């Protein structure tokens, strides 16, 4: 109780794990979409991004430079999506 034992590392998952939330927003299959990082220019499938911050939301980061590419949050009042870190998405 007095120490920070247990799971002491933050949860990092693959973008594929955010598919449930993202698929509530996108009409096309999102995990196989190609996303280009604005910061470093590399392109990856959304499913292979690093997923942080579950369960508050999905912060999807570039596996090369850690820049945040896309963030999605589900709230009782609607869903939020931020994709300013992505240069573009190709479906």
């Amino acid at each position, binding site marked *: *109780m*007095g*120490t*920070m*034992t*247990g*799971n*002491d*590392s*933050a*949860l*990092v998952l693959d973008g594929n794990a955010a598919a449930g939330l993202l698929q*509530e*927003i*996108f009409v096309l299959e999102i995990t196989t979409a190609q996303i280009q990082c*604005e910061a470093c220019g590399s392109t990856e499938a959304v499913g292979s991004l*690093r997923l*942080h*911050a579950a*369960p*508050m*939301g999905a*912060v999807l*980061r570039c596996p090369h430079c*850690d820049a*945040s590419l896309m*963030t999605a*949050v589900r*709230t*009782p*009042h*609607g*869903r*939020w*999506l*931020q*994709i*300013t*870190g*992505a*240069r*573009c*998405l190709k*479906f």
Partner: protein
Amino acid sequence: MILRQLYGACLLGNPEDAGNGASFFVRSATPEESIISMAQTPISRGFRSRRQEQTSKDRLPPGQYVTTDFPVLSAGPTPQTKLEDWSLALQLGGSLLGKWSWAEFEALPQTTIKTDIHCVTKWSKLDTTWQGVTFDDLLTAVGLAEPPEPYVMAHCDGGYTTNVPVEDLVGGKGMVVTRYEGFPIALAHGGPARLFVPHLYFWKSAKWVRRLRFMEEDERGFWESLGYHNYGDPWKEQRYDGD
């Protein structure tokens, strides 16, 4: 259709604005599951929250459950800032009101507090002990009797931000903490130093804090720009923007 609009907006927006929340609000077309009445949501026979076993109702804000472990939640990878490279600054406009190295920060008056913390993801941890420097003592250290502006934005390693009114930092309500239960705060939990504002939801107690910037007008931080409540009072259950 939506994607083209978003894409266009991405091109037009200044990438530097990302921190200030160039987000796009997508209003869902159908009612959220949470407002469907209990009669429609199937109950899972025999399921109950494990956390219910230790409820202390009068100490818990609405919708919260007690946990004995300490879940870690981060919007990004854990920064690995070495103590010799660490500093904390108070900023007003273009200048720094004060800046402390680790040794200097540790030499400031220390305060220990025992209190409860509440995460917006519904877990609460009771009777947690933290040690660090109060916001009041930071102001004193830079020769200020009062905060120069009404709002503060906390800036952290890794880019995380969160906004707090100064009223919620003064009078002992806010601190920058370096120890948990007597031990240095673990990196994954925000070490070496995190902001500590326990009367608000714990996303406001920003991990890896490096700079407190005074603002004349309120600006939304990271989660506040993405659908979470701007203020975050757990006793009023202000989890999301619109609550």
